[in-house]
């Protein structure tokens, strides 16, 4: 039932991307997102795609695995795309392609829709590449390190990072557990697949309650186990894995600097998406 949840699950191989500093990777993902939104024409997006392809190749994560992360948001993308396609409110320089009541499809809305969809996909693909190549632990280490300045204003950065890494660690365990409970209740005749939304929501109670109970039980046991292993907060704590920037991160830095520069240049020289549209249609 929940086997499709692969977003965020580390893919264990060794590669150039895997070996980068998590802090660098987080910064690069931010740069990548900026690039996606800066790119205002198809050449810019093509450049972003090209950069992503190279990054995926370097990461040695199979393409299919990266693409699977898109499956989760497919519905969302289609939904927004359809809305966008039919109800684009902007002025159009051309004859509408279709006009039917308030529904109107124009060249601009088609372009916008494609744009939106591609951007959303790229967004998810890029961020999932981060989680596929970075263990939850080093990801939270990276975040903790990047957010460290906040601890001077009494934000409990270490604790938050630990909570996040434990949450990430228990996701696959709880998914397994959910599947097991669903199977057990199905064996007792529970029906999760038919009926209206209220009935379906009610049908989930025999799954959610045991899951909740079990999560509490696990939390209690885990806290005992952490106590037994001398956990007492960040006080006097050392770290085994020290983050260190390497030549890989420097390469990454230039790579993303090039991406952003490229996208900006493409915008300046080739203009926005509608100018491009005009160029094609005329």
């Amino acid at each position, binding site marked *: 039932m929940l086997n499709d949840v692969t977003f965020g699950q*580390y893919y*264990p191989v060794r590669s150039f991307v895997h070996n980068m500093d998590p802090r660098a990777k987080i910064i690069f993902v931010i740069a990548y997102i900026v690039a996606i939104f800066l790119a205002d024409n198809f050449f810019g997006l093509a450049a972003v795609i090209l950069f992503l392809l190279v990054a995926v190749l370097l990461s040695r994560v199979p393409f299919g695995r990266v693409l699977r992360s898109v499956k989760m948001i497919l519905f969302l993308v289609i939904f927004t795309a359809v809305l966008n396609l039919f109800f684009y409110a902007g002025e159009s320089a051309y004859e509408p392609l279709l006009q039917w009541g308030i529904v109107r499809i124009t060249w601009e809305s088609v372009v916008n829709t494609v744009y939106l969809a591609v951007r959303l996909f790229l967004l998810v693909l890029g961020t999932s590449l981060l989680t596929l190549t970075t*263990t*939850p*632990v080093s990801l939270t280490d990276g975040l903790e390190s990047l957010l460290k300045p906040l601890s001077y204003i009494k934000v409990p950065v270490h604790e938050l990072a630990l909570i996040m*890494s*434990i949450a*990430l*660690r228990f996701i*696959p*365990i709880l998914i397994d557990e959910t599947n097991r409970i669903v199977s057990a209740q199905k064996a007792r005749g529970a029906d999760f697949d038919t009926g209206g939304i209220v009935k379906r929501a009610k049908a989930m109670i025999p799954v959610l309650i045991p899951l909740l109970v079990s999560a509490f*039980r*696990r939390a209690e*046991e*885990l806290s*005992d*186990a*952490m*106590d*037994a*292993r*001398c*956990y*007492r907060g960040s006080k*006097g*704590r*050392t*770290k*085994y*894995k*020290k983050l260190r920037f390497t030549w890989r991160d420097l390469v990454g830095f230039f790579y993303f600097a090039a991406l952003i520069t490229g996208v900006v240049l493409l915008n300046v020289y080739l203009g926005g998406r509608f100018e491009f549209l005009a160029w094609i249609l005329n």
Partner: protein
Amino acid sequence: MEAVRFDNVKYSYREDEDTFAVNGVTLSIEQGEFVAVLGRNGSGKSTLAKLINVLLEPTEGSVQVFGMDAADPDLTFEIRKNTGMVFQNPDNQTVASIVEDDVAFGPENIGVPREEIGRRIDFALDAVGMQAFRHATPNRLSGGQKQRIAIAGVLALLPKIMILDESTAMLDPRGRREVMEVVKKLNREQGMTVILITHFMDEALQADRAVVMHRGEVVMDGKPEEIFARSDELETYNLTLPRAAYICKKLRAAGMPVGEAFTAEELAEEICRSLQKA
């Protein structure tokens, strides 16, 4: 040297009641001993274990670990450093998503310098035979392997006592064997004091000493062979004999001159001897 000392310890989970999960236990465990703790579910075994490393504090009486009083909050940390504890569910005691990060968790907590943590990870993973899985994710390991990682996580704190609270209960026979091998080795080769809480009589047979708990009290205490020889008494505490001992008892009841046997090998030996005599 005395590793653990209980003096008339009582513990109640609810303050307002006088039902005690541990009810007046006096017990001494020497350093290097391998003690099995037996008893039905709810007999107070786990509570006893948690009193040792101060996960619980006694309602009455005193607990001492290497002479350190468990009631002294300043010593809690020092006691926990010296008493490692492995729990029942292998999934609920792993903090990190990579084996070596998880093993590092304990040493990080007590402020061990980074290079030293690396050495301790090596030591701990070698001790449980899991060095090859150093960079693996615990989720993909077998139950026995996960428990060995949990043991390694505890070993990295260099404890003198290791408590296993039904740590083999959720494992299959292969996993149980793996864990027992590791535990026995630690006891033999490093003089680790082991306190093993278990339902499996064959595991108890591998210990130097067995303690039977019933309704919060220690009711039997001695060599496992001696304990299992008192089968009628065991029955009153709702415990069963190891199967070989049960067969032995039947044979003796029929008049066969067999001595005590606790394993298949011993039983075969006894049967052979008495048949040849006949």
